């Protein structure tokens, strides 16, 4: 403590250290210390001015507005969570889809916007996909029966699902997407084996660049390099 009682205050040189006054202001001192210090502050205009400055600082902090989460950030987080395998919290070592936004974002602001831009340009990333292949396989659900007229109803089932069927190997999926003119740099938002009007295939959910809008691609089981095997390609959502 550097203050000397009785010495006239000479602002801006404080007779009491700022850190000590800040501790007093924050209630960080024990009662005895605080009581002694308050008595000194009462006789020290510079110290009182310092406490007032700390009050003003806190008031400014209090006045900072509380920003709402931007829609595109919420959508990106939604998409990441939706892309996680179903079944809630996976057991340790269970299948987990990594957030693809780590690679999408760096090209600019907004993962979903980027994701969408990439999709609009026919670019889908596959890097970082960790799917359950071999090892402890998860029993695949039976193919989802859809018709071309109600293809959109497959969205809820496919979004976040990792049922890639014959396209389970990332290389096979990449080859299939490339055959359909979709360059590979990311990952789909979900996949589900389906029958579309009786034809076996895989429904892939791809981003479009718009929130809550998805491109649904249905390809046959033989989709691969040079074989698009396209069964349906439509956009659903708002």
């Amino acid at each position, binding site marked *: 403590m550097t203050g000397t009682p009785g010495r006239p205050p000479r602002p801006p040189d404080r007779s009491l250290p*700022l850190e000590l006054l800040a501790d007093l202001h924050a209630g960080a001192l024990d009662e005895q210390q605080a009581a002694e210090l308050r008595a000194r502050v009462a006789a020290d205009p510079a110290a009182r001015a310092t406490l007032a400055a700390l009050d003003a600082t806190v008031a400014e902090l209090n006045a900072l507005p509380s920003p709402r989460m931007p829609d595109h950030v919420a959508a990106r987080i939604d998409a990441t969570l939706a892309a996680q395998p179903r079944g809630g919290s996976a057991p340790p070592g269970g299948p987990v889809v990594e957030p693809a936004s780590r690679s999408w974002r760096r090209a600019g602001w907004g993962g979903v916007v980027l994701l969408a831009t990439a999709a609009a340009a026919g670019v889908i990333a596959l890097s970082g996909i960790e799917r359950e292949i071999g090892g402890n396989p998860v029993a695949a659900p039976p193919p989802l029966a859809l018709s071309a007229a109600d293809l959109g109803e497959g969205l809820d089932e496919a979004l976040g699902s990792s049922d890639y069927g014959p396209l389970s190997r990332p290389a096979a999926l990449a080859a299939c997407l490339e055959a359909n003119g979709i360059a590979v740099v990311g990952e789909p938002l979900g996949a589900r084996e389906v029958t579309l009007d009786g034809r076996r295939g895989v429904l892939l959910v791809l981003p479009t660049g718009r929130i809550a809008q998805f491109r649904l691609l249905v390809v046959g089981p033989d989709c691969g390099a040079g074989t698009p095997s396209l069964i349906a390609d439509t956009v659903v959502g708002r």
Partner: protein
Amino acid sequence: MSSPSSSGSDDDLIAAHRRGDPRAFSELVRRHSDRMWAVALRTLRDPDEAADALQEAFLSAFRAAGTFRGQSQVTTWLHRIVVNACLDRMRRRQARPTAPLPEEGPGEPTECRDPIAERETRLAVADALVELPAEQRAAVVLVDVQGYSIAAAAMLLGVAEGTVKSRCARGRAKLAVLLGHLRNPDAVANVPPEVVTARQHRREGR
């Protein structure tokens, strides 16, 4: 399609998530997203960093939900994961030089309800926060910006209440100088003189 669990409590949502309800966790995140976004944006300042931190945090929570045993409230548990993610990023970023940020980032409110001078002050405050060491910044954001009690902030930060008070005290002292409320920068340790000069110049110049 609304989930049957969407109107339940946070505990209900966690339970539904663990049962495999694919919408339960997203609903939980939605409930708390604005508050957590505010914490992330105010501590990290950069909207990209804030978005990444939240995504990492929510993904961690998604994966760890199976281990949540209800010793604390779901909200506290989730907030703590978010605060930890932000602290990690702050510490990493403090290890490298910071680039100047635009005066108005995408994460700042676009609605101007206040006089221009007040708005500039608020932006200056948001900028000044970034100058604080990670631990002090987190404490100040939680207590002074977000309005958490000392006890709640201590729980979220995993430290004693006295530590939160002390960190707030140090942080406020530095901010008081950075914001120009105190004119004697020499009294504050660890505040680079050039930073103080720049802040004061800007505030005095408007």
